[in-house]
Structure formats: C-alpha cells, structure tokens
C-alpha cells in the first residue's frame, strides 16, 4: 500500500562551502499529488530534488521517501528506493554513447529479469507514449532539445515509478513543445504518479500542480494553490507570481 506521504523533508539544511543553499527546509508531498517548486535561480530548487533522490546528502535533517529515511540507508537500500523514483534532469542527461531506445531500456535491463525482446518492446512502448517511437535507433545527439527531454521522460518512466521528480521541464523549449511535455506529465499525474516539478514557468505550474511551493534563500516562503499564492500576504511571493506571469 502506498504511503500517505510520498516525500517528506524535515528541517533539511545544506551548505556548499560558506554558501547555505537550503536552510531548515521542510516540505511534504502526499502520494498521488503533483507539487511544483518555484523560486528564483539559485534558491535551492534543483538541489532539493537531488536531495530526494540521494544525489546530494544533507548536512542536517531527514528526507523520507515513502516512509524511509534515505539519509540513513545503505547503498543497496538506497538503490532499492531509487528504483521507485524517476528523475528527469534539466538537460535530460541521456547517455550519449547508446541509442535513445537503449537509454530507455537501460533501467529495465539493470533492474528486471525480462528477456531482451520484452525489454525492447517495453522501451518502444515508453517511447511511443512520448511520441518518439521512431527515434529508437537514433543517437541522443541527433535529437532536438524537446525530443531529448521527452526521451529523458520516457527513461524516467521506464520502471513505472511511483514518484517522478522533474527538473525544469520547460527550460529552453518553445511554448508548444513545453505544452507537450506538460501534457505528458499530466498523464502521469492522472495515472496516480506523485509528481514533484521544479519550474520557472507559472502557466505550467498552474496546469500541473495541485499545490505550489515557493522557495527563497533555501526556505519555503509560501505554499498553496496558485490563487492562494497570488493573494499571499508575502510581497515577495506576489511579486514573483506577477513577474513570472508577465503581469
């Protein structure tokens, strides 16, 4: 049975040298919900995502993923938890020495005992879901930015994760491609996947997020629906929402 809280960060602090990136950050994402993290550049949004998947270790605090504190897990147990998560990197981070299809097949080959034909079939199926079935044998370098991101999403979804972490899905994309990526993420949300999306794009956040979280200087300064944030008593939050919407 899925945990009620998919993700919980308790008083997480992190500094790189003298620079404090996260300061007693606390947030909770319920299972099956979609949350978007907003904030100016350098406020610790991407670092927050990397903490959740265990790529960055906090100086202080706890990080619970489906009830397990990943800061206390062994490498093997952390790998087990990671298999339940998908991560779409800002630049997709496709493995550029193998084909797009093999990128998507990679998690299946590593973590399942499926026959080669079945792995290929599932990888094609995931690529078809993001509209890239024809790109199976292409190399990542041959794809456009939007296609790379969609391929990255297909790889992140390969193991049908219960949690999907997405870093800047719209960054560097035209509005139409950005909208296509949002539609794919919406489909994941409808399928019951927990989504945590870092974005600068307010229209995208409105569409995707059940709730929005605003970070500033490594702290949560506001959390709520987009309407609630626009009426926030915090001038910084209102200004951010207006600035990002062009208002």
């Amino acid at each position, binding site marked *: 049975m899925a945990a009620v809280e998919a993700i919980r960060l308790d008083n997480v602090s992190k500094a790189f040298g003298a620079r404090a990136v996260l300061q007693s950050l606390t947030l909770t994402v319920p299972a099956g919900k979609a949350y978007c993290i907003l904030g100016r550049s350098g406020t610790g949004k991407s670092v927050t995502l990397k903490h959740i998947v265990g*790529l960055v270790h906090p100086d202080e605090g706890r990080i619970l993923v489906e009830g397990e504190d990943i800061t206390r897990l062994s490498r093997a147990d952390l790998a*087990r938890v*990671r*298999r339940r998560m998908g991560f779409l*990197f800002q630049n997709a*981070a496709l493995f*550029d020495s193998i084909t797009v299809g093999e990128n998507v097949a*990679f998690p299946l080959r590593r973590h399942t005992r499926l026959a080669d034909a079945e792995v290929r079939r599932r990888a094609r199926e995931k690529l078809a879901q993001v509209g890239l079935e024809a790109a199976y044998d292409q190399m990542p370098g041959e794809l456009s930015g939007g296609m790379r991101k969609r391929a990255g999403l297909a790889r992140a979804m390969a193991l049908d994760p219960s949690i999907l972490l997405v870093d800047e899905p719209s960054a560097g994309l035209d509005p139409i491609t950005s909208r296509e990526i949002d539609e794919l993420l919406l489909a994941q949300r409808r399928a019951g996947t927990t989504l945590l999306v870092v974005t600068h794009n307010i229209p995208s956040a409105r569409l995707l997020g059940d709730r929005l979280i605003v970070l500033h200087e490594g702290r949560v300064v506001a959390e709520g629906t987009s309407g609630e944030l626009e009426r926030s008593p915090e001038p910084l939050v209102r200004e951010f929402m207006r600035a990002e919407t062009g208002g």
Partner: protein
Amino acid sequence: MTVATSVQRASDALVDSFAWLGALSIFGARALRDAFRPPFELDEITRQTFDVGWRSVPLIAASGLAIGIVLSMHTRASLERFGAEAMIPAGLALALIRETGPLTTALLLAGRVGAGIGAELGAMRVTEQIDALEATAVDSFKYLAVTRIVACILTVPLLTVLMNFSGMVGGYIAESAIGYMSLQLYFDRAFSLVEFQDFIPSTLKTMVFGFIIGTVASYLGFQTSGGTEGVGRTSTRSVVLASLLIIVTNVLLVRLIFFLFPQNV
C-alpha cells in the same frame, strides 16, 4: 612577496599534493575492493577491455615495430665495436622485454587511454550523466570507474607482449636490411639469453601501470567541473599525471624486481 609568504605557499602546495594523492589512493583502493564484490559488471568490463585493448592494437604494434628498428640500429652500432653482432637479437630482446616494452606501452596507453577515459567520464560528469546513472539506481563508481580500471589492468600486460613481439619483428627487419639472417636463427639468438625471470616480473608490473592509468583518469573524470573547459583540463591532467606516476612507480618496481629476483641484476 616575502620569504614567509613563499614558504607558506610552497607548504600549502605540498599539503594539497599529499591530499590529492591520498584521495587518489582511497579511490584506487575502493576500486580494487569493489572489483571483487558482485555485481561484477562483466558485460561492461568486456566492452571496456575491447575499447582499451583492441582499439590500441594498431598504435602499439606500429610503435613496437618502429622502436624495434631503432633499437636494433643502436644496438648494432654499439656491439659492432666489439665484434659481437651475433648478440644483437639477444640484446634487443632483453632491452625490450625488461624495460623498453613495458614502459613505452604504459606511456603510450597513458596518452591514448588515459586521455580518453578522463574526457569521457569528465563529459559524463558535467552533463549529469553520472548523476543520471545514480538516479537510475546504478552504482556509477562501479559501473564506470571499476570496469575501466579492471580493463586497463587486464589489457596493459597483453599489449606489452604485443609491443615486445612487434619490437622483435622490427629488429629482424632492421637486421635483414643490413645482412641476411634467417627468421629462425634471429629468434633463436634473441631468446637464447631471455629467461623466465626476465619476462614474467617485467610484464606483470604493467598491471600496476594499467591500474595507475585507469585510476588516475577515472578519478579526475569523476572530479571534473567547469564545463567543456574542465573536460579538456581533465583529459590533459590524466595523461600528465598518469605518465608521471608510471615513471616514478617504475623506479620502485624495478628496485623491487631486483630485490625479488637478484639474478636479474
């Protein structure tokens, strides 16, 4: 700049160098430990062995041939003075097998393979591909570093044998150009003085060179930052530092071989 400042800077640089060597040693020791722990990543080791080994064959074979020709000419120039031309094949074989072959092979591979591994892993680091591996629940250290280090340890001795053989063929070509000597007579004379203790220790020591090449390049690759400029820096430093460490380690290994096999002195 005062003397005190200069001394302080020199001591800081020394401490940094020791810290770097310490971190590199821990990285290498962890790689050796993990190489004997499952999963063994045999598919990736095979792929890397092919990349490191098979793709280096033309370079090593051609270099060996050229080195053999040049060494043979030099050996002839020296031995002719004493009327000992018949010793040319044996002298060449001993020089190649004991020292020239292993060291030259290692230095050539530090250039070709070290630069390649450093640049590849460095590029993977700056484009977040290493993070992506970790996020996919794959141990990136084991999958990328251990496999490459093992591949280097396995292939450098094999390529050294190839270098030695090519060198001998080169020597025969040089001798044939000057006067007639049958291939059989040439190789009979070449191996007349070569013994087990000449060949085995000097070839096996190249496993250490392979370990150095793989470890230095992988370590620097994992530490890369600063975008494409950082990748270029990693590639260059991989070659320079691996070559330097190979040359220094070779002195220690030769001393060790002389200690363990006193008849080699």
